[in-house]
């Protein structure tokens, strides 16, 4: 294409320079050597320099930095560690009972979050779709998006306040004749509190893509279903849900990828030693091991393990989805 450099002719206007023949821009670009491409598009490449530097330094260097999981690292020493120790740190955490405990917590919390938080926006979107007044619909949507814009610290503050002894939840408990519960200190309540707050935070924002998908469903399909004798519920089941299935699959794949990373920042803000038995997950555990106790290599090994599981999960979810429903991310 000719837009970037006055030296290059517009497609189709005259025969292309050095590598001759095809007048289609993409084909021609593919045949350029690097030297030619750089000469023609150097201004464009120059725009990419700083962003590339960002990606290499702050995204790819840390990936390589994971090498310290296989090397002995001393704070203040070399960034890439002192000497090779092989899989020592991996063996260490695989035989560490605390690791398997937090692993179990992660899986439980991740599964609960997925089971509860994934379907909720679908339900809300379907309910919103049934509203006759567009004004009311718009209002409910605007309100329900709000929690998405809050800092996780504010969300944590809200959770702590609402569940405190003097908070609203306990006011209701007392009004119903129960004894107040100190939720933040009770490991048996942690999962409920966590998942409930997660729903509060994500349900509204999660509807956006579904509502967009709902508007693309052909109204004739409803008409046809009605003529076939389908009532409203059956129309929803046979027309609406299949219509938003690709969106559901895409979001399911993305959620699966986040499975292992379950709300690290939120848990870090609201958990405490009393709730560790249910609240401590892999990411919070490695945070304490690494940055509080300074066992960098050990924590890096756990982190690497977690990232690889995450990547594997996305990849498999995507592969399964492509085979079964044809919807995939790439």
């Amino acid at each position, binding site marked *: 294409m*000719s837009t970037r450099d006055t030296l290059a002719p517009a497609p189709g206007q005259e025969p292309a320079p050095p590598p001759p023949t095809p007048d289609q821009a993409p084909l021609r670009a593919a045949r350029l050597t690097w030297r030619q491409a750089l000469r023609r598009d150097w*201004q464009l490449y120059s725009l990419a320099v700083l962003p590339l530097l960002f990606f290499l330094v702050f995204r790819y260097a840390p990936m390589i930095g994971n090498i310290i999981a296989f090397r002995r690292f001393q704070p203040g020493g070399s*960034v890439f560690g002192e000497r090779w120790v092989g899989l020592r740190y991996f063996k260490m955490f695989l035989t560490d009972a605390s690791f398997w405990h937090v692993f179990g917590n992660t899986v439980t919390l991740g599964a609960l979050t997925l089971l509860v938080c994934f379907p909720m926006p679908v339900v809300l979107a379907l309910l919103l779709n049934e509203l006759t007044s567009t004004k009311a619909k718009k209002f409910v949507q605007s309100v329900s998006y709000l929690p998405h*814009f809050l800092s996780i610290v504010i969300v944590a503050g809200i959770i702590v306040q609402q569940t405190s002894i003097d908070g609203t939840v306990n006011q209701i408990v007392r009004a119903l004749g129960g004894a107040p519960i100190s939720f933040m200190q009770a490991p048996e309540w942690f999962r409920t509190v966590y998942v409930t707050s997660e729903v509060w935070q994500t349900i509204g924002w999660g509807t956006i893509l579904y509502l967009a998908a709902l508007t693309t469903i052909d109204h004739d399909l409803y008409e046809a279903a009605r003529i076939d004798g389908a009532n409203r519920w059956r129309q929803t089941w046979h027309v609406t849900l299949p219509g938003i299935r690709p969106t559901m699959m895409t979001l399911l794949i993305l959620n699966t990828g986040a499975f292992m990373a379950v709300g690290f920042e939120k848990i870090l803000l609201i958990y405490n030693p009393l709730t560790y038995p249910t609240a401590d997950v892999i990411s919070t555990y490695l945070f304490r091991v690494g940055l509080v106790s300074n066992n960098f290599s050990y924590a890096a090994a756990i982190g690497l393990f977690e*990232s690889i599981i995450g990547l594997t999960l996305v990849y498999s979810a995507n592969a399964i989805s492509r085979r079964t429903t044809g919807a995939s991310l790439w």
Partner: protein
Amino acid sequence: MVTLDTDPIVGASPRPRGPRPTRGFRVFQVVNTVILTGVVIVTLYPFVNVVARSLSDEAEIIAGRVNLLPRGLNFETYKFVFRDELFWTNYRNTVVYTVVATLISIVLTTCYAYVLSKSSLKGHKALVGLAIFTMFFSGGIIPNYVLVTSLGLKNTIWAVVLPNAISVFNLLVMKSFFENIPQELEEAAAIDGLGTYGTLLRIVLPLSKAVVATMLLLYSVTFWNAWFGAFIYMDRAELFPVTVYLRNLISSATSTTGVGASYEQATQVAANIQSVTMVLTVLPILLVYPFVQRYFVSGIMLGAVKG
């Protein structure tokens, strides 16, 4: 060309109905209205409650009597927080970090998105893939910490600004916007003798005000809300953003907090100081929210449909 002016919130016409609504459907509509009203109430309640607490008397809060309205109206806590120098220092830090980080992010994102929108560029696929891969795999906390520390960024603004300078999601939104700008405009600019820089600055960006505004909002809200980078990379209280100030209040909620005042004052305000800080931190977000949420929605739609 994609514009961000269409209002995606309402969407197309509502779902068609049969000739006569059945009795069952009317019952459903009532139930639906009740449920959605419930959603609105539950979403908004915590905000009302925080404001009520921030204006209430300490004793009334502890007695568990504050819910919708303030009880024992009290402005002392606000006065107390307003007098706290550390709070203002941290609040100013948040403003500075947000402005600097947003500017850097916008420039970097715009440059890279523009490059990525040129699909005929040699190496285009590699440049896109390089960015997208980081959405699915990251180095993790520990290597990041080691990196930032060894670059000597600890206790500087750069520790919170640089590591998250480009959001790949925002990058893809912007890329798809640029891709929809008619090629002919840029070709005409090239014929008029404008180079790449000139085309970007004088032709492309003036046409992209909507997407640049969206990016400004997306980035500034993200940086305003951020806390973790500052939490791990900063050791000195005068460098904290207000989110870390608030985090420290929450984590010490049960213990007595001095916060630099006399003990008497401190115990007076300990319970609702947290609410006041929350109100003051969230206020800017709430004030811009009605105006910006449309842009956010447009952004996510553009990103999802095209990215």
